[in-house]
């Protein structure tokens, strides 16, 4: 297959078209605007609807409407814009609707900055809106993975009738790398629950997130959490790199995992037994993979472009059975491989 150079944002947009996305609603914000720009140019010819909404809030509610009819719908934004969408995302989760939401993270809080960041981890995995719910959260670390995960995100969102998020960052969105587009083999699922025209040939469907009877609402939430259990069992993914004999295991996701891998390679060259575990899904968190790694590792070093958010999940995953140290840069600063190497050395007592 031909390899082409594409920006992460553009490759993701192209992959969404190929995955059968039919509706995109968004509002521009750096550093994700190329997604909107690409779809504005290409989507109509591909049989899709591109609409620049008047606000992020309007856009996410348009996604709710489109998803209700059973079509694949997507929105994208960057950190402050995702906060605006949070109410709508909660409604989508409460209505059991599938959709894909892209967050190309930038520094925060507030308007923050426009450089790469990972400070929305808590928001994405714990509290993207009010109420008991989760999103599928994917953390690609290359332009090729941006493509592969958007396809997977649509499939799993449909399968489990829930929103899926791709948690990228400004670095992944802006960089160009070689990319190939896989042939899409999965067939779109039947959606008998969709509220579309049926000529009075069946009972009408209702999409709703309002349940005034506590016992009815409780049952709907519990049913949803049963599906979450199934997802946790079957769809948690991580990449393990040189962890078999590693004394210190660095853990990082997204763009930071690439910097961490460079640091691990530098450490190996100096005779330090370092490895890397990279969560590919952030929810579900790859608990089993962490537990297995903790059987042999002496120590973990969690590296993030934040003040330390994923580290809590790492500690929980391994039941605090091994020490978990932290190194982070925030506000849009990307950690250097040499900084991570210094941290690794600090915890293994210098080069051997």
């Amino acid at each position, binding site marked *: 297959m031909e*390899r082409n*150079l594409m920006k992460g944002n553009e490759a993701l947009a192209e992959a969404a078209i190929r995955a059968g996305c039919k509706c995109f609603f968004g509002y521009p914000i*750096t*550093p994700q605007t190329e997604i909107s720009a690409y779809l504005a140019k290409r989507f109509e010819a591909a049989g899709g609807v591109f609409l620049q909404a008047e606000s992020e809030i309007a856009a996410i509610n348009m996604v709710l409407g489109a998803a209700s009819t059973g079509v694949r719908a997507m929105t994208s934004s960057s950190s402050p814009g995702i906060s605006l969408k949070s109410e709508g995302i909660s409604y989508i989760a409460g209505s059991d609707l599938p959709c894909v939401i892209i967050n190309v993270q930038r520094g925060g809080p507030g308007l923050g900055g*426009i*450089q790469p960041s990972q400070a929305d981890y808590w928001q994405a995995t714990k509290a993207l809106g009010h109420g008991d719910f989760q999103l599928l959260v994917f953390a690609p670390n290359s332009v090729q993975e941006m493509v592969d995960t958007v396809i997977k995100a649509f499939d799993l969102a449909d399968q489990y009738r829930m929103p899926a998020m791709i948690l990228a960052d*400004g*670095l992944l969105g*802006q*960089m*160009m*790398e*070689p990319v190939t587009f896989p042939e899409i083999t999965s067939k779109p699922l039947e959606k008998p629950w969709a509220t579309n025209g049926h000529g009075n040939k069946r009972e009408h469907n209702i999409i709703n997130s309002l349940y005034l009877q506590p016992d009815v609402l409780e049952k709907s939430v519990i049913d949803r959490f049963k599906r979450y259990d199934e997802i946790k069992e079957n769809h948690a993914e991580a990449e393990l790199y040189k962890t078999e004999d590693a004394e210190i295991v660095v853990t990082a996701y997204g763009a930071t995992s*690439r*910097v961490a*891998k*460079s640091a691990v*390679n530098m450490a190996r060259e100096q005779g330090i037994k370092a490895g890397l575990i990279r969560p590919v899904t952030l929810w579900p968190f790859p608990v089993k993979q962490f537990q297995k790694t903790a059987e042999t590792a002496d120590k973990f070093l969690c590296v993030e472009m934040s003040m330390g958010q994923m580290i809590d999940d790492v500690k929980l995953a391994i039941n605090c059975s091994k020490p978990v140290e932290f190194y982070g840069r925030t506000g849009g600063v*990307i950690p*250097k*491989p040499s900084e991570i190497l210094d941290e690794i050395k600090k915890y293994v007592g210098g080069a051997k």
Partner: protein
Amino acid sequence: MTHDILLAGFGGQGILFAGKILAYSGLMDEKEVSWLPSYGPEMRGGTCNCSVCISDEPIGSPLVLEPSILVVMNTPSLEKFSGSVKSGGVIVVDSTMVDAKVDRNDVKTFYIPATKLAQENDLAGGANIILLGKLFRETNIVSAETFKKAIEKVVPAKKAALAANNLKAVKLGLDYAD
């Protein structure tokens, strides 16, 4: 073998385009490549830079902090980045735009009046590609043949005249001995 390349100058000089051509050249040679622009409130006249990695191995961090090759098109960029070039590295300077000299003897520095050459040869805006030509002459990171393929890939068919200009520009750099 990994080349960590940093190109820097003012917005509007074609820094990002030159980086893109380099990355495509790596792609044509079946290498692993990455291209990362500085992005932000830059505009024409502001500073601008771009990291390109070309490697036989998968690329770790795409952000080039210690370049093995630095191409600079303005004085602030030379001042900012020349100290970070790896020992044994290469610096290519547009000497029309930069008065200063590199004060290091552990790197190879090449000066070429690229902007002046571009103006003299009716190739306005082609200084970036002339600099690449000089870089290819001195380093062999990309062959002239590969570069030609990359240009043909990047420049759309309906703008074929631009491809010819780029090929003319790269030749000026390739032929320039200082």
